[in-house]
């Protein structure tokens, strides 16, 4: 092959072809194509693996540690560890995913001008342009958070941002990205940008700090509390955005720990703080957040539980997009899988994972302990997609953390699951998860009809905040006073509850509870409960 300074790379199944300088990091090339790097490209996970179909990509120590010899011989590589040394044809494990926007009608008081609502997620970004006179959504733009190449979860993002240079890089990246999304909104709606009077941004505490240029170091270690949780107000000129320089940009305040303004917005959207009875909000994103409360008092908490529900750390996990098994049903003692996009199955997304385990429990293939009954290492759902024993373990950790979080907050009210009037499930996963399966695996321990998919409550809440009455600056002082953050990590009972909730509910007990039409007791594993 003649020497040349550029290399060609073809990405399947998209058939995207790229030319790049020889030696370019695959991480940078693929990130631009929307591929995510869960551990921040440090070779510590398997999330970015790609299969080399043609050409050579070298294997280093980090890859030998994470990939089996068989996988390596089949061409599997960790993209973050490879450079473009040869012309390559590779197959991507990840696919573009649908991002949840919000179209819920809402009540508002008309105001002059246009506004932009931004849901700044760890993984995804959603922006909407609104006419504040009519409440109409004029345009929507979504994107993957461009910081994600430096770590998919918030802790790796924090780690990257503890050195000042890293923090500045992440701050500049996200400000630029949101600025350019707003330009796209203006272009799409064909409106004069000068009419935009207000921008409201919501996000978790790490996103808040990174966008606002606040020090994230306090969020890197126990007790994970920052002193700078309040409302941050900017002028668009300060952010380098091409709007009239005086547009007000507000990043709404956080609630405590990692629980940020996306959850504050969620409380606004679900009106949790105005309700008489006890209600809950669970947002299963990259991080899992929980709020329980009523008009007197609200408790909130976060757990690092999300990744499994988004397909991370699952052997054939993927996001809810083309090729993902999104539903598994049991009919006549056998399973039937639904694949998104009507193509051959390629992997398993969060809702499919929950369904698959629920089906395994129903068929007796999986025991309440989480173990495969036949002792096998994997169960083929639909060739070539399998559910492995360690996938079930990952799900047990994730669902155990959420279920234990809900229980711990309910305990603080002296309440049990039966006292909860409604549980709102926010986020994309909440929209797609089968509520009966969620109950079957013990993610929620109350009847499915009490669970309501609430959509993108962060975005809806941000929109509501655009219509803040005159005089209310968006600091939400009363709501913040009413809301207490509970540090689950520091709660010894939580650790015990977490271990208890890792097991799956016993089928017979559950069936009896449902037959009797009673509220199920909190999940009782077949193991002895207290450790």
């Amino acid at each position: 092959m003649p020497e040349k300074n550029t290399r060609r790379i073809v990405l399947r199944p998209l058939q995207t072809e790229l030319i790049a300088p020889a030696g370019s990091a695959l991480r940078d090339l693929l990130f631009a194509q929307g591929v995510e790097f869960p551990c921040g490209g440090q070779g510590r996970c398997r999330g970015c693996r790609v299969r080399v179909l043609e050409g050579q990509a070298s294997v280093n120590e980090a890859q030998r540690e994470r990939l089996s010899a068989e996988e390596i011989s089949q061409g599997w590589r960790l993209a973050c560890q490879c450079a473009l040394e040869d012309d390559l044809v590779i197959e991507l494990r990840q696919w573009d995913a649908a991002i949840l926007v919000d179209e819920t009608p809402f009540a508002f008081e008309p105001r002059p001008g246009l506004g932009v609502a931004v849901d700044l997620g760890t993984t995804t970004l959603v922006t909407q342009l609104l006419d504040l006179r009519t409440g109409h959504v004029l345009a929507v733009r979504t994107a993957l958070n461009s910081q994600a190449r430096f770590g998919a979860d918030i802790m790796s993002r924090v780690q990257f941002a503890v050195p000042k240079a890293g923090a500045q890089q992440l701050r500049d990246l996200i400000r630029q990205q949101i600025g350019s999304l707003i330009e796209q909104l203006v272009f799409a709606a064909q409106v004069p940008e000068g009419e935009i009077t207000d921008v409201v941004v919501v996000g978790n505490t790490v996103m808040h700090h990174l966008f606002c240029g606040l020090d994230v170091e306090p969020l890197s270690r126990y007790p994970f509390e920052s002193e700078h949780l309040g409302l941050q107000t900017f002028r668009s000129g300060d952010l380098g955005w091409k709007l009239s320089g005086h547009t007000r940009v507000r990043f709404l305040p956080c609630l405590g720990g990692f629980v940020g303004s996306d959850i504050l917005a969620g409380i606004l959207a679900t009106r949790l703080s105005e309700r008489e009875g006890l209600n809950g909000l669970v947002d299963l994103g990259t991080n899992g957040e929980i709020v329980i409360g009523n008009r007197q008092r609200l408790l909130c908490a976060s757990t690092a539980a999300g990744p499994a529900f988004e397909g991370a750390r699952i052997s054939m996990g993927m996001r809810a997009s083309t090729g993902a098994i999104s539903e598994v049903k049991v009919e006549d003692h056998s399973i039937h899988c639904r694949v998104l996009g009507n193509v051959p199955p390629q992997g398993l997304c969060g809702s499919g994972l929950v369904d698959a385990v629920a089906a395994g429990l129903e068929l007796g293939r999986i025991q309440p302990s989480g173990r495969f009954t036949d002792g096998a290492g994997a169960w083929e759902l639909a060739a070539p997609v399998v559910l492995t024993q360690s996938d079930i373990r990952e799900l047990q950790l994730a669902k155990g953390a959420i279920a234990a979080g809900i229980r711990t907050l309910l305990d603080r009210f002296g309440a049990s699951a039966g006292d909860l009037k409604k549980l709102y499930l926010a986020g994309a996963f909440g929209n797609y998860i089968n509520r009966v399966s969620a109950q079957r695996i013990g993610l929620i321990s109350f009847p499915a009809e009490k669970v309501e998919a609430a959509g993108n409550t962060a975005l809806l809440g941000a929109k509501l905040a655009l219509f803040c009455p005159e005089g209310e600056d968006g600091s939400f002082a009363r709501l913040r006073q009413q809301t207490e953050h509970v540090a689950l990590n520091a709660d010894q009972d939580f650790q015990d509850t977490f271990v208890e909730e890792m097991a799956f509910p016993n089928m017979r007990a559950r069936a009896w509870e449902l037959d009797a039409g009673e509220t199920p007791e909190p999940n009782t594993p077949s193991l002895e409960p207290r450790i």
Partner: protein
Amino acid sequence: MTQFEELQQAIIDGKAPVSKALTEKMLKEGIRPGEFFPKAIIPAMDEVGRRMRECEFFIPEVLIAARAARASSDILRPLLVGDEAISSAGTVVCGTVKGDLHDIGKNIVAMMLESAGFKIVDLGVDVSAEKVVDAVRQHQANLVAMSALLTTTMVNMKSVVEALAAAGLRDKVKIMVGGAPVTDAWAHSIGADGYGKDAPAAVELARQLSAA
């Protein structure tokens, strides 16, 4: 089934009341306290470790089995005298590093090491390097086992290694590290003596390091 096998089974099944009662009964029948470890507790926890490694057991089962092992060993330890005292396996100072509160993994490792015959000094979570140094001195430990579950806190393992060196104790102890973000390469880079990828591996590593 011999009584030792029965006790093994009770531990593997996580039946703490059964293992306690059996231990008391066997002692009454004249079995020496020192025999329980090699004949029942250590093989039972090795089996638990094997099942954990093969994904057959998960965190709840392991914790419950370890608790059953402890129900037996708590009775036995005060009775061990002279040659039977099991200090020979070594003394381990363990904890979760400063800034980190995750303790489930650390607890499992501690309990499995204890069942393998090590004396455990568990410093808990959010443990400073100074605290480790003090404990090593006070208990004349020969092993230090540190855990971290966050990428942001695992750097504090390095502080522990450095503090032990500064205190002149580095050649007195072997240091092992573990936790989700930790790797063999990381252990090496901070000057630790070994990395255990899971609890059974940590027990194996502790045995090797103690023997070295």
